[in-house]
């Protein structure tokens, strides 16, 4: 991957609202080059979407998240991919990862209530024929996500003017 692409990704991951002109100046490229690069990154599905990191705990939305360790029987010819697909198609499922270690898939589920998540596991997930076992853990508090710490604000301890 080109240096411009990597640097652009670094900048966008921090703040994807920076205007093209500013991005171009900071990266020493033309506006057209930056626009093309972004376009190409989107087409290659390197950039999938531009979304803010939200602390939902500060909003009124009732929300419960569960991490579910899932053991499955891999499918003939398609391995784990086919199983993952069967699982991630459920709307409640936010993330699915294939894992090394004691279980196969890690599934992150979001619901409005504990009951809703529990129901998803018992009625939708564990009833899939290839699922051989599940272990559900509920998230109690989120401290840091995608490099962003939730609680603390940024403090600048520096003196306002120094030589």
């Amino acid at each position, binding site marked *: 991957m080109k240096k411009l692409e990597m640097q652009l990704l670094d900048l966008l991951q921090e*703040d994807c609202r920076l205007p093209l002109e500013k991005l171009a100046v*900071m990266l020493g490229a033309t506006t057209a080059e930056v626009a093309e690069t972004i376009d190409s990154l989107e087409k290659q599905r390197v950039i999938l979407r531009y979304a803010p990191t939200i602390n939902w705990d500060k909003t009124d939305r009732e929300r419960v998240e569960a991490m579910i360790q899932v053991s499955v029987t891999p499918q003939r010819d398609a391995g784990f991919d086919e199983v993952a697909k069967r699982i991630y198609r459920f709307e409640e499922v936010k993330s699915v990862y294939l894992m090394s270690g004691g279980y196969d898939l890690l599934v992150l589920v979001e619901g409005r209530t504990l009951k809703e998540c529990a129901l998803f596991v018992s009625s939708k997930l564990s009833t899939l024929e290839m699922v051989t076992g599940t272990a559900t853990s509920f998230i109690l508090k989120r401290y840091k996500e995608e490099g962003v710490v939730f609680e603390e604000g940024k403090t600048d301890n*520096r*003196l306002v*003017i*120094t*030589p």
Partner: protein
Amino acid sequence: MTYEKFINPAIAAVPPSGIRRFFDIAATMKDAISLGVGEPDFVTPYHIRNAAINSLLDGETQYTGNRGMPELLEEISWYLEHRYQTKYDPATEIMVTVGASEAIDVALRALVSPGDEVLVPEPSYVSYSPSVIFATGTPVGVVTTAETEFRLTPEAIEAAITPRTKFLILPYPNNPTGGVMGREDLLKIAAVVEKHDLLVISDEIYAELSYGDHQHVSFAALPGMWQRTITLNGFSKAFAMTGWRVGYACGPREIISVMLKIHQYGIMCAPRMGQVAALEALRSGRLTDYEDVRKMRESYDRRRRLMVEGFRAMGLECFEPRGAFYVFPGIQPTGLTSEDFCNRLLLEHKVACVPGTAFGACGEGHIRCSYATGIDKLNIALERMEAFVRQVRG
């Protein structure tokens, strides 16, 4: 009681730093954006902080040897050899100081005799000239200008040399201009240094923050210059470690041993905690090819371009800095003095900058803006400054 007879008149005569006044005003303004900060906006990388915490938990709270911890001296020696091609014996040719600031002070006090003239390029860091005076020497300014990209020229040095000239301070990459000196530039200086039998104090604290195709060249790495150079460096700028106060001085053992005498009697040693942190910075840097430093440098580099472009878009001349984290744009088109410009910009538009005159009289017509601040704040500051420039230009 009057204290006049008790106070050393030579010290009393030194004016307080020109930065102080702006600090006092800016400190009271809560919503002002400060571009006046001469330190990184990064916090010291966590693994470095963690190393210091662990050493405290292990009870490492004692003095270290005067020169510094032997492991740190070894690491500094390795770093300088591999990064800047200068060889220093860790046992005799390096000493760890309380920031590069102490190194400047101690070097001057160890070397300068009453009446010796010390060449100080201007604009430059505010401490050099006062430190020369504290060391009973006479600072002699050597003007650098935007026309020559704030490089020190052999002609300017020749013009300032008198029979009393003994030392040259070489402050590159430069605070406040961001100017740098390439190998060719330095070779010309080396010839003058040789011809006039001078000694050079090379303050290379910003060496790691060099941008674009500029590679920092250490003055001591030039042919014949090792014997004539005291190299000063430290951890503050490159590793975002300002508050730890760890720097170092390197040079011929005959000189380091004299500097060590002042350090030994005056300071004892740099704080152990800081030395442990510095050791971690260099050790992990060696393993990761200085990834921490690279990441911070890349981040500064983007902001550097943003600022240069921003000032040029306002119609102000802005020399492209290739080092440190400052831009030093010219504000002549506004018709204001540097001092007035900064005063009004702060009071009317809430952006704090430092007038160029704080770094020497030839800084008139310029302001220093540090870009070690978040991109969002820099963008707001640029907008405010643009409005101000438009307003004063009518």
